[in-house]
């Protein structure tokens, strides 16, 4: 059986392994899960990912308990169709989707996935990134994916909900995202729920000052009262190649201007680099490309640690060649064969 060292990469290596195991049908064991951390072993969000993967992969699992440092996972197929996953503690629903989606992209029948929990928190890409950036690129590989947010789930209240409908393709096509092309539009949305409205206006004012996008580029959206409290700035950069999304979260003790600065800095660095694929997207694209027909993209250099650990896992598991070559001071070309 394939044995994975869970002490490097933590939760991400677990999620990628689960996704690969369902896709390839190959069982695995992961040992020393999160060894050396303050609280080692499976935490609640990891357990949710394991159980979601077990449902989709019809898998036999051992060690799926809180605090467990070793898990074995034996998938017996791919169960496409209706799935509902509920993620506790406003944990990111997007990360669970990332675990189960790859196998469903080439399944025998369509899937309808309901995800409940956190949709917008600072520890994972927000729903808008999935909807506007990630899934449109997956669609270029063949499948059809449409995501619909019915309720926002901020940290800590959670309670968000979105659905993803997947119409699979027989195989995933090669993906090339090398040139960004022209920037077509730059806009921003400031979402607020149950927090003083002054913060949103200050964020917009600060964004207008930090960017040259003009005051009309930004819009405040007040969410219905039934959501938990929250505030997020979502900046979108639409180019010939794709729509990139950048987020920054308001939180107690952090000034509105500071939140605006965090959001703007990411978007401006991306625009300045001239590449199509941002940091988060680079990490998320590797796996679908590796299980499909490969491809290449240009991204920011140096790449995130997540990208290198993920690349190592994919090389070992699938035998694919993944090259990460810097082509300028700030950009790199990633090729998957």
């Amino acid at each position: 059986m394939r044995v994975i060292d869970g002490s490097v990469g933590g939760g991400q290596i677990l999620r990628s392994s689960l996704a690969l195991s369902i896709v390839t049908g190959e069982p695995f064991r992961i040992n020393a899960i999160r060894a050396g951390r303050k609280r080692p072993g499976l935490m609640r969000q990891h357990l949710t990912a394991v159980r979601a993967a077990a449902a989709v992969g019809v898998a036999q699992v051992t060690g799926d308990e809180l605090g467990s440092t070793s898990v074995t996972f034996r998938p017996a197929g791919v169960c496409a169709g209706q799935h509902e996953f509920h993620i506790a503690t406003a944990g990111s629903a997007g990360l669970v989707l990332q675990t189960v989606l790859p196998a469903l992209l080439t399944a025998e029948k369509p899937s309808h996935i309901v995800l409940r929990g956190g949709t917008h928190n600072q520890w994972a890409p927000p729903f808008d990134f999935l909807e506007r950036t990630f899934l449109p690129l997956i669609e270029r590989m063949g499948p059809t994916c449409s995501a619909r947010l019915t309720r926002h789930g901020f940290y800590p209240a959670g309670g968000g909900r979105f659905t993803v409908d997947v119409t699979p393709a027989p195989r995933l096509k090669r993906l090339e995202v090398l040139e960004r092309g022209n920037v077509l539009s730059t806009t921003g949305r400031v979402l607020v729920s149950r927090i003083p409205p002054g913060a949103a206006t200050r964020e917009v004012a600060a964004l207008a000052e930090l960017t040259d996008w003009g005051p009309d580029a930004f819009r405040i959206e007040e969410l219905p009262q039934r959501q938990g409290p929250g505030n997020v700035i979502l900046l979108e950069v639409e180019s010939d190649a794709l729509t990139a999304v950048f987020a920054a979260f308001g939180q107690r003790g952090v000034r509105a201007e500071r939140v605006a600065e965090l959001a703007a800095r990411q978007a401006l660095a991306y625009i300045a680099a001239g590449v199509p694929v941002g940091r988060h997207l680079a990490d998320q694209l590797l796996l679908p490309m590796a299980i499909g027909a490969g491809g290449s993209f240009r991204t920011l250099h140096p790449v995130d640690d997540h990208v290198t650990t993920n690349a190592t896992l994919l090389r070992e598991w699938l035998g694919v060649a993944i090259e990460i070559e810097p082509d300028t001071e700030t950009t790199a070309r990633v090729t998957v064969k």
Partner: protein
Amino acid sequence: MSGKRTVVLGFLGSNLDAGGRKRWDRWRPTVDLCRHDDLIVDRLEILHDRAWTSLASIVRNDVRQVSPETETVLRVTDMGDPWDFEAVYAHLHDFAAEYPWRPEEEDYLIHITTGTHVAQICWFLLAESRRIPAKLVQTAPPARNQRDLDPAERAGTYTIIDLDLSRYDRIATRFAREQIAGLSFLKSGIATRNVAFNALIERIERVAIVSPAPILLQGPTGSGKSRLARRIYELKRARSKVVGGFVEVNCATIRGDGAMSALFGHVKGSFTGALRDRPGLLRAADHGVLFLDEVAELGVEEQALLLRALEEKTFLSVGADTEVGSDFQLIAGTNTDLAEAVAEGRFREDLLARINLWTFHLPGLAARPEDVEPNVDYELARFAESTGCTVRFNKEARDAFLRFATAPDATWPGNFRDLNAALTRLATLAESGRITVDLVAEEVLRLRATWQRRRPDDDVATLVPLLGRDSVDALDRFDRVQLADVVRVVRRSGSLSAAGRELFARSRARKQSVNDADRVRKYLIRHGALEPLRSQGVVSS
């Protein structure tokens, strides 16, 4: 983890768990306990006053949102004033009695952060006494600066407290130290060296601390039963196993008509001379320890009542028509074999069965020669303490006394009582605090003389177990004294040859005796004593 479900029970915190628009900005113990990354609450039972039903519903909904794994059960508890200790305790006690605990399937945590301090104390008491099979969980808000924390830490912290103290290494070690102190305590601080005796005391100590069951101390007169019984009581009290007093009674001294009312009490006017109510010794020992020495001397009727008192913890006083209760722990002492007393119909078999769950045989002093010396030191120290005069042996005198005291022919029939008397005499007579060889020689003569003037009772006690009372009664005093002495020597020697050597020592010295063992055997056969000794395994067949 165990694979068991985790169930949290706790009060709704009417302040800490409060609702409102800003509730997600605050730490709320009940909601946040379900928000930890390394703890999944499978069921949450919220106890709340009827007045707080709508807050309880808000909490339930919020818990459902952050913890889909958790099933929340709301329990209305109308216990009135939550600061009234009696009301809260009674309420939770009832709750504990009625709650369908399934500890083999579920792990229980009592959340003590919410609720009044009184409620907290009651939870603690119920969990500590194992009326609630739960651990306690205490929660605390997160550190001030939220920005630096990862999401799991923003739920604050929780600490699980298991009140089973034996699970904590450092506490267990401390207990072990105390236990050693307990052993020394039972031995009255005497550093005894006899291995068998030390093992016995260790066992008694363990039993005394753990078990409220009766203890039977069997041993010859003066072997220290009474002192040990008191020590056991003091140990139990020090470890809070009993709260009442120590009541000691020698059953031989309360034989006859007065025994019943002495033990079980009487009501005024129940018989001539019953001028006022008398509670009786059993009642006096309520929640304490009753030491019945020479328990075999207890009358048959009293035995029946005692058995009932042990089993039901209630009994009927003389002349009373309602039962009174007494919850006492019994220590019984005896110097005879109770099984024999049962065989002879003098002692109830069911009572023996009840009290000999823990039977300990205290050896006499003669069987513990290595302990003579520490006991000598102990007696001298006690003498010094009570009189203020420090007394010492000189070297020669000490050697002489120990040589005598540990020799095989020092039978110490009165055991520690004899030793105590001897040392009291020596210490009293010692001039300027020195015990001399002359004093020792004098004391040795005195002891020997005492031991030879054995009371006929002791001879009877030696022979009855072998021959039965009727045969012993039929013996002339002339034969009884001789036979008893021979039997004692045989018992002590363990073989006929060794006994023969001792019994015919003078003849042997003059080389006039040829087959000592044979003479002893024939003597014993003539009195019908050989077979019983063989069947008891005293001599080999």
